């Protein structure tokens, strides 16, 4: 998995108080990738949906997306934006 582009989310009203970014990937998210993200925080996985939904929550950031999509969203607390670097570094190890 490679991150192709990181785009600031337009949904600022939804993500109020947080900065949200859409991570564009070079291939669709699969279950293997979702499982690999588990060390990043508390995982919610809704596998019965048309496209399974996953979300990782911590006090500093949240990651959510759908299996099969070539993107996911990361929202980070404005006061803790440095935590994004930690996430990015972790994601780079998943290649």
């Amino acid at each position, binding site marked *: 998995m490679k991150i192709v582009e990181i785009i600031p989310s337009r*949904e600022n*009203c*939804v*993500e*109020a*108080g*947080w900065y949200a970014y859409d991570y564009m990937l070079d291939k669709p998210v699969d279950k293997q990738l979702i499982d690999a993200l588990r060390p990043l*925080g*508390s*995982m*919610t*996985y*809704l*596998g*019965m*949906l*048309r*496209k399974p*939904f996953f*979300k990782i*929550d*911590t*006090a500093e950031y*949240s990651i*959510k997306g*759908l299996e099969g*999509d070539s993107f996911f*969203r990361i*929202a980070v*607390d404005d006061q803790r934006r440095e935590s994004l670097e930690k996430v990015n570094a972790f994601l780079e190890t998943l290649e």
Partner: protein
Amino acid sequence: MIYLNQAATSWPKPESVLAAYEQSVRALPSSQFRSSAGLQRAARSAAAGDSTLIGNGGAVMNDDVIGETRQVLGQLVGIRDTGRIFFSSGATDSANAIVYGLPFDSLAVFATETEHNSVLRPLLNLVEPVCGPQNGEVRIIPCDETGYVAPEAAARALEGICKPAAVFVNHMSNVTGRIQDIAAIARVVHQKDAILIVDAAQSAGCIPICVDEWGIDALILTGHKSLYGMQGTGAYYVRDGIPFRPYRYGGTGRDSRKLYYSDKPPFDYEYEVGTQNGPGIAALGAGARYCLERGVDAIAAHERGLMSACSRALREIPGVTVYGHGDSSADSLGQNAYGPVLSFNIDGMKAGDVAYILQNAYGIVVRAGLQCAPLIHQEMGTYENGTVRVSVSDMNTMAEIEELVRAVREIAGSVGAAAGHAADAANDATDDAASTADLHVKGRRL
């Protein structure tokens, strides 16, 4: 894609709106009061059989379209004095024009808990700081958990006021769809010689409005919702006799030698300055005409049918809480009436996550969060998480509602099945909501 976010901006637009916009853009430009070229050229082009220069509906150019749009809007919302309808860039612009234009340093100001930030923010950030805490406090009239503002609550709020007052009321909640009994509130307000400003951004075009009959002193409209116009268009009305200054000055195309306006009656203010959004106003006129020709009652009945079915079906899903649209039998002006908006939540899920799944997994566009109306969410108990809002227009179908209900049923069922693995509920710091402690509303709730 199923679009159920009509309360934000309606889509798709009627074909007549798109045609009016295109014709206006293609026509020779002419600004209000500035040139008769449009009329003359249109007449010439019509005589020459050149339809490309002819404006909306085969009529003449933008000059006339602006006047026609004023007439159609007046007809739609029950305003006889259409010369007191002024164009704006939308509800926020309209609200600011009214807030800045009224003499707030001498008024007691009231607003309801259902107001949108387009009204709340101008009031709280202009009136209070400018007028000072003694004179400029904005007092908040409470609503119930459905968004209903009882006329009696307005009466209690106005008890004992010893100076002129202005009362802002949102006709229809953009969160629950609840419709206020404006005629009853107007009676209460006028008994106190106060003025009533109604925000009809959500209701105009889909709910009957009778400005003159009900006694509305000022009205806020936007073009891009149920009037089917373009984003960046709107209008407001201020009854003749209300002391009201422009909040912007500039060229109007009339009486260019005059540099000062009289600040004593009779006022000679002009409220539309600069070049108006001719194509947008043409589209707004076509949208309002669509509503008139289709019939607001017919639109309301269609949308009520969709929302009632939606509300009933969602309420039957375990784990789903529906806010608003509680009485499917109410008519569009009844005591328990709702417009084409409702909100819901799914137990154990954040509103923003539900909206994310609906959009990206099911292709259904809704709106999540506080919907720019934070105070009503306090009454609803949804300030932390917000809600998922569903809103329809005349263009939506029952099949689309059925698709939404199927999707919500799947999501709610999936949450139930995954409950054992649910995320730590305390880990709530995402998405829409700031903490309650962050809410800093200067207005005093009554």
